[in-house]
Structures are given as C-alpha cells and as structure tokens.
C-alpha cells in the first residue's frame, strides 16, 4: 500500500500543453504514472506527450475515468482549474501553483469539505508513492520504495531529506508536500491519519516550518493517535519575526508560529526532533529497529 496515490491512480494533467505542463507530464509518464489525459481549453482533440487532450476536465474524466488531476496553471487561473476538476468529479487534485490569493483557497477549501474531496497544495511539489505513482514535480530518482512516510510543508527541503533517507537505505511509502501557503487543502493531521492507517508505512518524517500552528496541532494529534515512530524537523529557527520567508505561510506573527514553540510541542508529544536535517535519517533508522 501507500497513501492517496498508487498504481491505480489515473491522472489528468490540467494545462498539459503549456511548457511546465508538458515537461512534467512527461516525467510523470516516464516514472510510470498513469497519465490518462490532458485538459487545455481549445486544444481538445489533439495529443501531447502521447496523451489525448480534451477541452475540459469533465470530458477528460468521462472519457478516461480518471480519479486525480494535477494543475500546471498560472496563479490567476489556478483556482478556476481546481474548481473545474472538483466539479467534473475528480476526487484528488494536486495544485502545484504558487501565488493563489488566500480568499480563493478559502473558497476551494469550503467546497472541498462540502464535496468530500481533497486538494493537495497549493504551492507544493505534489505527492509520490515511490515505484508506483508520481503526481508532482519532485525529482523522481532520489526516491525509493520502502516504509517511511514523509510529509512536509516544503519542496526542496523534502528532497534533501528524502535523498538522505534513500542513501541511508530507508525507502519511502509515500512522500507528500502539503504546501507552503497559509491555507492548504491537506494538512499534517490529514496526512498523519492516512499514514497511521497504511500498513506499508512503519515510520513517519514530519518536516514543518515557521508560521501558523499546524505543527503544534499535529504534535497533539500524534501524541493521542499515532502509534508509529515520528521524527520531526522544523525549519526557520533563525527567521526574524514579521518577515515572510518565501512561502506565504512562513511568517512568525504576533509572537506565534515560532520554530521554538513548534519544536517544544514536538518534544512534549514524544516526537524525536532532529536539530539539523542530516540527523533525520539516523533518527529514523534508530526508531525503526
């Protein structure tokens, strides 16, 4: 097993005919992901990287039975693309796009909850179940199949950690980047629940960063609900308050959202905390023994 995506996942690429869309569609296909269709308005009936293209997600889904989509769409159109996918009956939408207005994400979240569907992101690298399915932009070659579940608000920092795990012989069940925006569709707790229920996942790596209180809530949840070893790391210990550190969500404001608070919460909940990223694989290895 694994979580959210696997061999059965059939993916529509929204914006497949764009530069990023076609590039990543190809890397996903090369990895073995079942990319069954693309959707670009006005390009219906054509083909792109060997995949049939439809004018709308609805047509793409009806023709292929896809159950997931990934949106490579500029920020001004990305919210619309997610709505389109949900309205077409897609159950899992991965939204890579950075820069979507928070108010639009609020509306998407509200719709998501009322339909009982799921968005990963926005502003995220996507999700990969190594050896099975990749729906995202992460470099595939650093991943290997195994039993560590990785969840992170970051992109490249996740690659750093996964790379390490792989080199240390610790494969991954699923790696998910949940996104760096203040409001995201799938958060730590949502993911932790899935990892807890997944028999393939034997240990969990949770990579947080400053801003918000998602890590604190995750810590509480881990303490009461997670029966698998968890290794935590929080980026941004040296970030000054009031400044946005790249990610729209990475900001210490009003004295809350500091790395120190998050690390304290992790420790209080019995999570093994890595001081620096390179300690993570060692901690995982020791806990999995």
């Amino acid at each position: 097993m694994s979580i959210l995506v696997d061999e059965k996942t059939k993916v529509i690429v929204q914006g497949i005919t764009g530069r990023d869309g076609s590039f990543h569609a190809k890397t996903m296909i090369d990895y073995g992901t079942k990319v069954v269709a693309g959707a670009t308005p006005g390009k219906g009936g054509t083909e792109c990287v060997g995949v049939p293209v439809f004018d709308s997600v609805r047509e793409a889904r009806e023709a292929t039975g896809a159950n997931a989509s990934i949106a490579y769409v500029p920020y001004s159109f990305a919210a619309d693309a997610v709505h389109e996918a949900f309205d077409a009956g897609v159950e899992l939408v991965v939204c890579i796009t950075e820069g979507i207005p928070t108010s639009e994400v609020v509306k998407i979240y509200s719709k998501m909850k009322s339909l009982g569907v799921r968005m990963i992101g926005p502003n995220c690298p996507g999700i990969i179940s190594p050896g099975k399915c990749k729906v995202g932009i992460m470099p595939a070659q650093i991943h290997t199949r195994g039993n560590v579940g990785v969840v992170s608000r970051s992109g490249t920092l996740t690659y750093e950690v996964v790379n390490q795990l792989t080199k240390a012989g610790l494969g991954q069940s699923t790696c998910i980047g949940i996104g760096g925006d203040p409001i995201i569709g799938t958060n730590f707790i949502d993911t932790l629940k899935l990892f807890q229920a997944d028999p393939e996942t034997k240990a969990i790596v949770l990579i947080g960063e400053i801003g918000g209180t998602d890590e604190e809530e995750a810590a509480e949840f881990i303490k009461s609900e997670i029966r698998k070893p968890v290794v935590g790391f929080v980026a941004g210990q040296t970030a000054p308050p009031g400044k946005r550190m790249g990610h729209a969500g990475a900001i210490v404001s009003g004295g809350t959202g500091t790395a120190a608070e998050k690390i304290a919460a992790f420790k209080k909940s019995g999570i093994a905390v890595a001081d620096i990223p390179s300690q993570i694989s060692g901690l995982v290895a020791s806990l999995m023994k």
Partner: protein
Amino acid sequence: MNIHEYQAKEIFARYGIPVPPGKVAASPAEAGKIARDLGKPVVVKAQVHVGGRGKAGGIKFGKTPEEAEKVAGQVLGMSIKGLTVKKVLVTTSVEVASESYLGLVTDRKAKRPVFMASPAGGVDIEEVARTTPEKIFKMHVDPCTGLLPYQARFLAGRLEKDPKLQSQIASIAHKLWKVFWETDCSLAEINPLVKTPQGEVIALDAKINLDDNGLFRHAELEALREGENEHEKAAREMGLSYVKLDGSVGCCVNGAGLAMATMDLIKHYGGEPANFLDIGGSSSPDKVLTAMRIICSDPGVKAVFFNIFGGITRCDDVASGIVRALKEINIKVPIVIRLTGTNEEKAREILRSANLTATALMDEGVRQALQMAKGGVN
C-alpha cells in the same frame, strides 16, 4: 503587504466606514494648512510601517494650525524603531467616550476569515489575547454567505449595550467585511473603534495588511507599495524572495524551506546568516546574477553560500549564473557551492571550466562557508 493608516482610512471611507476627516502631509507647512482647512484641533500621526508609534512619540496633538505645524515638524523626520517618518496624517481630534476593538484576519486553522471584537480597545490585541482571552469574541465568516446579520449583531452586542450604537457597529462590521474580502486583505482592523460622547461610532485608527497573492488583481493597491529598498525591489521583480539579516554568510538557495534550513544550519555551526534568499522554482542564469548582486551589496557579507537541490531548478543553470556573476560583478568575497540533483554533472563541468568546485553535501558546504567567512579572504 502593509499599507499606511492614511491609505487604509481612504479605503475605509470608500466603503462607508466613518473615519475622522484628515489628510496626509509630508512637511510641517502642509500639516499646518490641513489643520487650518479642517478648522478644528487636530492629531498629527506618524505614518510608518511599524507598531508602537504612540509610545515612541509619533502621535501628537495640535490645538491650533500653528501648533499642528510645530508638532508635525517634531514628528516628521523622527526615527521609530529604525524607520524614518516621512509622512504624517493630520486628522481632527475626536472626543472619546469609550474604545473597543474590531478586526478581521484569516484563521489558518479554521481555514476561513475570523472576526474578532473586544471591549478592550486601544491596546495591542495580541496582548489582550494572551492576558485576558475571555475579552475577545470571535465569529468565523463563511465564504459562501459572507458576514451574516446575526453575526454582526452578536459582535456589536459584545461591544455596546445601546441598540443604536449596536446597529452602527453592526453596519461597520458589514463594511469591514467587504473591505477585507473585496480587497484581499490578510488583516483589516479598527483599533480603537471609538464611541464619542455624542453617540457616534468612528474608526479612530485603521490597519490593513494585504495578501501579497491577491495584489495582482488590485493594481491600485499594488501601487501603494513603499519602503522597499532597491535590492528588495530588484528581488521581487525578478521573482526572488529576499530578507536581509545581520550575519556574515550570504545565502542563495532554491526553495523557501531549504533556505530557512540553510540559515538554521549556519547558526547551528556557530555562524550567522546574512540573508534569506530563495531563487524560486524555475531557474535561470539571470536570476542567479540578480541574487548575487543583491547579496554582495550587503557590506556585512563575508562569504556566499550556494545551496541548490536540483528539481525543477537545473543545477547547470545555476552554475552558468555563478560563472557569469563572477565575470560581470566585482565580487570581493569567497563563494562556496553545494549542488546536487537535476543536471548535477553538467553543472560541475561548467564550474570546473571556471576553476570552481562544488560539494554535494549541505553540512559540508555550510562548514566551508563559515570557515571562509571567518577567514575573510578570497
């Protein structure tokens, strides 16, 4: 993005939220003229992007136009928490019977906007939240319906007993919601919201933070951006995220999380980062060039550390950028490069041809950079 009180009040006024009449001035003479035109005692308020200006002496009263001109002269040019006051807001002085708080922020946990009302107005709301949380009343707003009348009524009822005042406050709450939602705010706050002895409710102060991600659809608000230095501006226009810090190791990293982790690692090994810099997803030599210009303009920087984990970012693009930067910019500090991932080998070749080397390990790179920064020689 933060905007000034006078700009926020202009937006409030456009939505019908009562604010005291006033105008912004950049010179004492201008302030005096505004006070004369208002024909009433005024308050002169420093317009700086920082809190606590009252305690710092940035708010002064002028009973006459002459006095207004005089105090404006004192406030203009003063330094508040490191920021120089270049503008003051001159508004009529309002008699205050009571003060309260009314504000809206995005609640990251509930994933929707939340209204907050507190009878404890005029003080820092975060302080109220810490010390007397029972004095803050909250109402989440459903994005489908907007603020509902019963919610506005509830909030108003927490601030005043008199039904007439309650209906004024409820009406202000509806307008504040429209300001927040229609202009893509991340915060819209009235603190204090005051009641006058005449029974009017007025927004005495106004604070708006704009969601940066929403600015593309509000050109008129994007135009309010100010206080950026040339490097911050250059970074933003090139799609880089840059935050200046006080250390000696300049950082150039792809990805915000990795950039923060890099800063933390510098600190972990006993150094201090000079900046946060995320060159973003799609790499290009131009971006690297701009990043280098910005980092090296900081005289505190004693060494530059590149930390690149290639994914969408291609290592060869970054390497080309570094080589170009070394040719085009007069760089006086040593550069340490860590790169791995997409097109790593190509990148190493490019670097080799310019007599540069790169490590593949982050910890090693950071330690080298620290050594270089301490050594201080190229």
